[in-house]
């Protein structure tokens, strides 16, 4: 047998083999019996209103070109392309009477199967060949041309990355030649402001006139015009995406309070405010915050955790699979960029309503269902293939996301403490490892710094990419080993802005010289500026000392990763880039990094006027019906169909997974992971998120505190220590040059700062994604808080599934009569602008719960969030397959913390519903479904009742019992009075809280007798069987 070196397995070189008469082209179609696509397409077509499609045959088409004999083609089929058990194959064109649609990737779009086929031919020692793939749909039935058009446009192909044709498509192999490299001057001299603005718009630079003037001034002083590469480099370096100018700007906020007072405040940088809030906490377990690709915090004595959450909104709107796919790839590279081994992923997805009428879909927008399906597939594809468990996240459906879906991708990594080198030196080689460079992703940074509209959608094709996770997986293996062997001085990922951004930032204090002719390309013909700015995926840039290059090269060969040496860092303070003999860029580093004029921005914000609920009486709804509707709401219902398409078990360290209970269908609050390599101790890490955009509509300040609280509840519920929580922020807002968008952003940042103080939790990393607008309408302003916690003992965790009939149920925290921003208000159309007050002193309750979990006294715990306590209790019952009986408090009014008057959100007296025709009904609704923060439900053993009561004291109250009846019975304590008056000291007043004022203390452990439950038929009583709740919640079929 021939012994191969690693090199021999690489793809054949890209030189044009020339016009050779003996070359032949072959077309091979393969169809797999029972392929799920053949079922999916007719179903999806029917959803689009194309009901005449009776049968779909799905083929994969392989185009080959090379010096191939017929025997060679047959051999490729037999050895590689055709599974003899399931597949049929046709060489040439298949016979069909059906209508044919073929879809192929656009030239330059990643075609993984074609590349693997070329490599497989090399394994078989066949002559070099070029391959391209396509999908072929044979559609039978009663279909007219319009039907085919709908199917092509909305189901079978996405023109952003694919071409499609009714009939056979000719193959498009990667181009093999292109124009000679050139860097062309762009005339700036003498342009007036209008012309500068026009130039910025035309070239999609996303720079404003002041910024264009700064560039003009620089080049006037040099006595020349910039090259295209220089101008594009500056646009990238100065883009919102790369430099976060809004978060660094000086902002004047005109803030109208609810009482009409106008307050004007000045803000010296939002980013600074977050940094200061973190610094003030002086947490000694922080390792690196806000300065690198990811935040780094201590895990144990030897290892640190790296965390990062990114957004990939615009690309996901245009090409959901590719956008989300590369979103995962990008955030994982951020983790690699701090020398950490990625160990887990998270994802939070915000889409328009699933059932949006096609007629209501704006032009240029994909339907939310299609976006969701593509995004979910894209996330699963990348995370699963990297071998990373996707363990935590959220999915939201709101009308405010129709034109602008949000895709948040998070990643967690592990690295030995102090192992991440961050100081490149003059003389270090600039090494690129990973994927090749193509025209893909040109201008992604500037593209994401502008709003979307139908025209941008049409132009932005090259800004969207398809990932190649296997290449990135190779980078993971190489970087971990290179780090351990000390082979590099600095590392960063090649993300937005491509090499321009990576090399420019890494060499900011040094200088750099690059020859772009050394950059390996996917296909020839790229201009220097395109190579320099390409955002081709899966590339990392390292500063490697001379003597590290050879060992790094060997490592790369072992792990099948391409390496190229593209230049060196210098001490010149200049960025010098050429392509062979063609000079492209010569810029001072200080212009790139310090030349951007600081923005001065104006912001306005008005607090919601805390008017009581007006008019609009609540609908007549039975408690059981309300609970079932809430459970079935898209924002509550089971996420199994999405989450199970992600591998949440790989790496063998998932302690708390997305689902819990005997049938694994109860939703959990957070993930707990035990990283490989740390099995010698019991400490684990927990991941959770908080996100409450509906609150933000009313009060973005409160949204921030809510989101932080939700993340804390979730972490605490699974056993994480509330005194060791690191936070990450992700702001997705509209155009910050519009004062109202900016005003709400400033308020949200202020909320984050306040939250860091109240929860004593530092922010360690964050990202803002602005300009999320479609056709001038801003996205539903959304703050995602991600949180990383430490679980001291992986054997002491809790999940939401009830475990034991006869156990006690406790409610920690108190509800609110305010329904503003709640799911139930949305569901029932209740008009309430009042938001429940954020928790003023949250840590005592979370410490108490953590303590109880640590002592092994909590058998289940669940946070109260969307849908309120009724949903929380039902989810616990569903997961545990047990019944419960609980008496929950009547909704009380919010209490204003005297120390927090300035930020009070709600009025202090009256629930606002006195005038309503149906106070009892509203009271019941509020009790069952209010979403006041700070609440958890606990299940504790009967025998622990005294100990639990003692530890919780006034922070919680016993509300019921787990039963074996299979019924969820929830009683709302009778109208207006305190619900638990039968077994605890009475509530003092409508506006006071017996809980927060220490009313019941440890004495709550009184009686909750069966006799106290009112008879069935009481309007304040909800009785639903667990099985009915399960069906409403949408659990998959039970085993």
């Amino acid at each position, binding site marked *: 047998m021939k012994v191969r070196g690693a090199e021999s397995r690489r793809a054949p070189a890209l030189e044009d083999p020339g016009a050779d008469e003996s070359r032949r082209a072959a077309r091979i179609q393969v169809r797999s019996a029972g392929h*799920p696509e053949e079922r999916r397409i007719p179903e999806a077509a029917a959803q689009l209103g194309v009901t005449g499609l009776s049968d779909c045959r799905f083929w994969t088409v392989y185009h080959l070109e090379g010096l191939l004999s017929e025997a060679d083609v047959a051999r490729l089929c037999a050895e590689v392309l055709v599974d003899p058990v399931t597949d049929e194959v046709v060489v040439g064109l298949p016979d069909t009477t059906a209508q044919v649609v073929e879809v192929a990737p656009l030239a330059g779009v990643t075609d993984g199967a074609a590349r693997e086929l070329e490599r497989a031919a090399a394994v078989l020692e066949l002559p070099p060949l070029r391959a391209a793939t396509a999908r072929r749909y044979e559609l039978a039935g009663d279909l007219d041309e319009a039907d085919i058009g709908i199917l092509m446009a909305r189901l079978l192909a996405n023109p952003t990355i694919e071409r499609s044709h009714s009939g056979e498509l000719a193959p498009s192999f990667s181009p093999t030649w292109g124009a000679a490299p050139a860097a062309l001057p762009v005339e700036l001299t003498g342009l007036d402001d209008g012309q500068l603005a026009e130039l910025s718009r035309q070239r999609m630079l996303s720079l404003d006139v002041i910024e264009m003037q700064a560039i003009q001034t620089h080049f006037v002083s040099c006595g020349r015009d910039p090259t295209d590469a220089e101008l594009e480099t500056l646009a990238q370096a100065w883009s919102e995406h790369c430099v976060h100018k809004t978060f660094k700007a000086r902002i004047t906020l005109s803030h109208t309070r609810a009482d009409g007072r106008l307050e004007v405040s000045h803000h010296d940088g939002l980013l600074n405010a977050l940094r200061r809030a973190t610094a003030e906490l002086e947490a000694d377990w922080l390792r690196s915050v806000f300065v690198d690709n990811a935040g780094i915090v201590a895990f144990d004595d030897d290892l640190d955790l790296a965390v990062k959450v990114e957004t990939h909104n615009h690309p996901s709107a245009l090409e959901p699979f590719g956008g989300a796919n590369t979103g995962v790839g990008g955030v994982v590279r951020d983790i690699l960029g701090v020398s950490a081994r990625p160990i887990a992923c998270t994802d939070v997805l915000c889409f328009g309503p699933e059932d949006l009428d096609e007629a209501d879909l704006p032009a240029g927008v994909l339907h939310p269902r299609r976006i969701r399906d593509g995004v979910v597939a894209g996330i699963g594809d990348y995370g699963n293939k990297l071998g990373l468990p996707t363990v935590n996240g959220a999915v939201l459906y709101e009308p405010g996301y129709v034109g602008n879906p949000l895709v948040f991708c998070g990643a967690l990594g592990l690295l030995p403490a102090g192992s991440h080198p961050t100081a490149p030196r003059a003389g270090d080689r600039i090494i690129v490892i990973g994927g090749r460079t193509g025209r893909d992703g040109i201008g992604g940074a500037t593209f994401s710094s502008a709003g979307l509209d139908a025209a941008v959608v049409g132009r932005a094709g090259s800004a969207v990419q398809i990932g190649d996770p296997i290449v990135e997986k190779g980078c993971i293996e190489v970087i971990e080993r290179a780090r351990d062997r000390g082979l590099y001085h600095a590392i960063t990922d090649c993300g937005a802005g491509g090499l321009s951004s990576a090399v420019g930032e890494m060499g900011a204090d040094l200088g750099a010289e690059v020859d772009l002719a050394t950059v390996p390309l996917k296909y020839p013909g790229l201009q220097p500026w395109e190579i320099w700015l390409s955002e081709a995926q899966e590339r990392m840039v390292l500063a490697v000392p001379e003597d590290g290059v050879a060992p790094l090269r060997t490592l790369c060969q072992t792990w099948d990763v391409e390496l190229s040496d593209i230049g060196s860092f210098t001490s010149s303070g200049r960025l010098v880039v050429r392509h062979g003999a063609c000079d492209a860029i010569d810029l001072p580093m200080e212009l790139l990094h310090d030349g951007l004029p600081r923005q001065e921005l104006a912001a306005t914000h008005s607090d919601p006027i805390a008017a009581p609920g007006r008019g609009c009486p609540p609908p007549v709804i039975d408690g059981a019906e309300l609970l079932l509707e809430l459970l079935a709401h898209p924002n509550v219902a089971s996420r199994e169909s999405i989450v199970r398409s992600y591998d949440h078990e790989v790496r063998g360290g998932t302690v708390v997974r997305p689902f819990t209970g005997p049938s694994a269908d109860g939703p959990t609050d957070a993930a707990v992971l035990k990283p490989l390599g740390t099995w010698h101790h019991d400490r684990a890490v927990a991941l959770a998120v908080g996100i409450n955009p509906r609150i933000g509509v009313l009060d973005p300040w409160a949204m921030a505190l809510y989101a932080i609280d939700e993340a804390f509840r979730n972490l605490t519920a699974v056993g994480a220590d509330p005194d060791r929580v690191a936070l990450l922020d992700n702001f997705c807002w509209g155009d910050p040059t519009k004062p109202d968008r900016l005003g709400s952003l400033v308020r949200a940042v202020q909320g984050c700062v306040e939250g860091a103080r109240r929860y004593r939790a530092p922010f360690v990393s964050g990202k803002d994604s602005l300009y999320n607008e479609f056709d001038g309408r801003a996205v539903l302003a959304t703050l995602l808080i991600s949180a990383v916690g430490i679980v001291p003992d992986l054997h002491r965790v809790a999940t939401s599934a009830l475990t034991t009939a006869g156990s006690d149920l406790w409610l920690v925290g108190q509800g609110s009569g305010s329904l503003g921003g709640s799911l139930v208000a949305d569901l029932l159309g209740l008009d309430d602008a009042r938001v429940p007050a954020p928790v003023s002193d949250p840590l005592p309750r979370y410490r108490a719960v953590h303590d109880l979990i640590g002592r092994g006294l909590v058998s289940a715990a669940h946070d109260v969030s969307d849908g309120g306590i009724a949903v929380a209790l039902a989810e616990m019952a569903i997961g545990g397959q047990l019944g419960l009986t609980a008496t929950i408090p009547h909704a009380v009014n919010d209490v204003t913390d005297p120390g927090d008057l300035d930020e009070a959100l709600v009025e202090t007296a009256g629930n606002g519903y006195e005038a309503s025709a149906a106070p009892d009904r509203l009271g019941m609704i509020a009790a069952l479904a209010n979403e006041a923060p700070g609440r958890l439900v606990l299940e504790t053993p009967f025998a622990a009742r005294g100990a639990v009561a003692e530890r919780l004291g006034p922070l919680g109250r016993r509300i019921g019992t787990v039963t074996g009846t299979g019924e969820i019975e929830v009683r709302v304590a009778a109208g207006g009075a305190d619900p638990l008056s039968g077994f605890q000291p009475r509530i003092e007043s409508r506006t006071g809280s017996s809980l927060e004022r220490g009313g019941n203390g440890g004495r709550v452990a009184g009686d909750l007798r069966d006799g106290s439950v009112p008879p069935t038929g009481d309007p304040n009583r909800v009785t639903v069987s667990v099985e009915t709740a399960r069906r409403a919640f949408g659990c998959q079929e039970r085993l």
Partner: protein
Amino acid sequence: MSRPPVLIPHAPGTNRDTEAALAVAAAGGDPQIVPVGDLRPAAFSDYAAVLLPGGFSYGDALGAGGRLALELRAWFGLELREFARSGKPILGICNGFQALAKSGLLGPRSFTLAANAGGRFECRWVTLRVEPGCRSGWLGRLGGSTIRCPVAHGEGRLAVSDPGVVAELEQARRIAFRYLASGSTGGVADVAAGAYPANPNGSVNDIAGMCDPTGAVVGLMPHPEDHIVDWQRPSGPPGSRGSALFEAFVAAAR
């Protein structure tokens, strides 16, 4: 006792190699992860067992495990066959199973692993039974026992070229693992009977794993390496760990 060296080949895209190595080490073996690019045919004689781990070798771009199957056949086919002939155990998990099946190392290609009936990747815990009558010598003493562990795959539906094949495989005692109904104890009647999600992918006759005609080569879709200690289990009583499988595997390598 000596720790037999166990080869764990790593192709680009392999990803459950570390867990597999952990399971082998816990069972008393000496796992050695070797990138396929560094692997030489002559090196096979240095090992007492081969474990092909899970993942997405080469991105599964030409069908799950297809390209790795080609390499196993083209580069190491002789060595692997000789390995099995001499009774040294070969275990393929998930992508490793797919590659073994498609390489022909699990016998002539009368069965394959096709796209899940549900049409998408599926991650969930399942209960397996080690088939009592399976001819695999090294699995033998596990016969009738159960293993709880996760599946995580998009192409795990065991499919056959014609219905008669199942009877043939059964007759040849080559069916090594079956999916059981949840909570069952491994009784003959406790198979999933094709019902989702106990049978998570629509595999014919609930078949989760196979062995080759010699019994030395065994493959299965689920991941016993992800259940080697109790805290990895999501719920239910302790026991039914995947460790037993690795103990048998390493024992056979001694």
